[in-house]
């Protein structure tokens, strides 16, 4: 079966959840990937949505985090104050799944504004749950399409902290989680360098070249010594993904 770059990205993101018990899910690509993981290798994966749905098992792909299918299938629905205080902030969630409008070399995320805050060129939606997801989850996976517009040297506004200004910053800021340990794009996988925290290309999706990845990155992209090729989506993965997407509202 042939597949699109977005399908490769979603499958790669879903694979990253193997062995994970609890994931805090934003809507869009993260939600698709987490639901795909539940339908393939991780049927017991606990999906936690910021709308207060704990253990949601949606039968159709939700368009919004408030989709009725989330509440109706959840093990428990709690208030928004409770989901953030008792469940996220307390450090109970292993993986946080985030998107980004801008992502920088040190995995900091901007979803607030392009240009000057008071006179913005583009006003983005804002923080939502992301700053505390990025702070409190055991680790964070970012799913984002790779381009020079999104992959910038330094975000213009730090909405959610990846590695701040570099090694030691998360500890100094008392951010309990390990931060973004994986970035999944339509081109490949990036991980922070253990010494510098700089996002480094560790895997290329089939058919993608290092040059393509470099051209889609707003800083001089480093390539890990053991660069691998991401295994292509299997037929089972693609079948499950397409069946899942067929459930989404028109």
């Amino acid at each position: 079966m042939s597949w699109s770059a977005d399908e490769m990205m979603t499958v790669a993101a879903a694979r990253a959840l193997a062995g994970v018990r609890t994931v805090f899910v934003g809507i869009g690509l993260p939600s698709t990937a987490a639901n795909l993981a539940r339908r393939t290798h991780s049927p017991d994966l606990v999906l936690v949505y910021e709308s207060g749905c704990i253990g949601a098992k949606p039968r159709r792909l939700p368009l919004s985090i408030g989709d009725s299918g989330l509440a109706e299938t959840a093990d428990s629905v709690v208030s928004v104050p409770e989901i953030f205080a008792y469940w996220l902030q307390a450090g109970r969630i292993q993986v946080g799944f985030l998107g980004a409008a801008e992502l920088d070399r040190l995995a900091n995320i901007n979803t607030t504004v392009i240009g000057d805050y008071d006179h913005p060129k583009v006003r983005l939606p804002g923080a939502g749950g992301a700053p505390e997801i990025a702070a409190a989850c055991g680790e964070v996976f970012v799913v984002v399409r790779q381009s020079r517009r999104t992959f910038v040297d330094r975000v213009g506004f730090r909405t959610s902290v990846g590695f701040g200004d570099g090694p030691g910053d998360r500890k100094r800021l008392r951010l309990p989680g390990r931060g973004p340990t994986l970035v999944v794009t339509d081109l490949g996988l990036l991980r922070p360098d253990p010494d510098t925290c700089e996002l480094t290309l560790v895997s290329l999706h089939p058919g993608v070249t290092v040059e393509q990845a470099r051209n889609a990155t707003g800083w001089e992209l480093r390539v890990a010594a053991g660069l691998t090729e991401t295994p292509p989506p299997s037929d089972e993965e693609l079948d499950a993904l397409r069946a899942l997407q067929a459930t989404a509202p028109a």
Partner: protein
Amino acid sequence: MATVTTLSEAVAELVGDGDLVALEGFTHLIPYAAGHELIRQRRRDLTLARLTPDVVYDQLIGAGCARKLVFSWGGNPGVGSLHRFRDAVEHGWPRPLEIEEHSHAGMAARYVAGASGLPFAVLRGYAGTDLPAHTPTIAPVPCPFTGEQLTAVAALRPDVAVVHAQRADRSGNVQLWGILGVQKEAVLAARRSIVTVEEVVDELDRRPGDVVLPGWAVTAVCPVPGGTHPSYALGYSERDDAWYAAWDPISRDRDAFTAWIEEHVG
């Protein structure tokens, strides 16, 4: 006890120009009809508070009702931008919009503080982000026992909270279920409250996962069946995802937006 009344009377009596108003409902039970009534009654200079402004505030902002927005995530869920919100912030149309920006966790904690009669709440939040530099209702607070630095957010105490619920009884006791959001906190944090409901019933038979707000803690209850469309009321309606998608082109254009409001809201 809450008064059971009409929405137009409740808005006329309880919401004034310049008020801090919170229409809450986290992607579920969003009080659209009440938002439209605010537009219809030409409320001005409102400070609008809401975690997710959603299309309901896109409409209020575009209609010129708002002076300021207090929020944490301003998008059209699953669709894209809130174009009236962006036009106001980026170009000052139809008037400049002041913003006070938080995270969801911070906004939720602010309502909790308000509902609890406290001037602030404490959370682990915002550390290392650029938000505190722009938002004066965020401040550091040290733990008196450990010395650890945490974050305080100022309580949010709306003049009026407006929410939608599935049902109320004739004494104004309110029952809601499904995704609960911050509605209970918003109502309890506010000085006055308006609750629109799908129906008023003789007896509230309790449901799993429901929340009951006593009538004596609510100001007005207004029967408005379908008053949450295009959002939804679990057990009564489905979210109109197509409507949210259709809003995008309408809201991109000032004239199309204005015509839509004139035709559908008045």
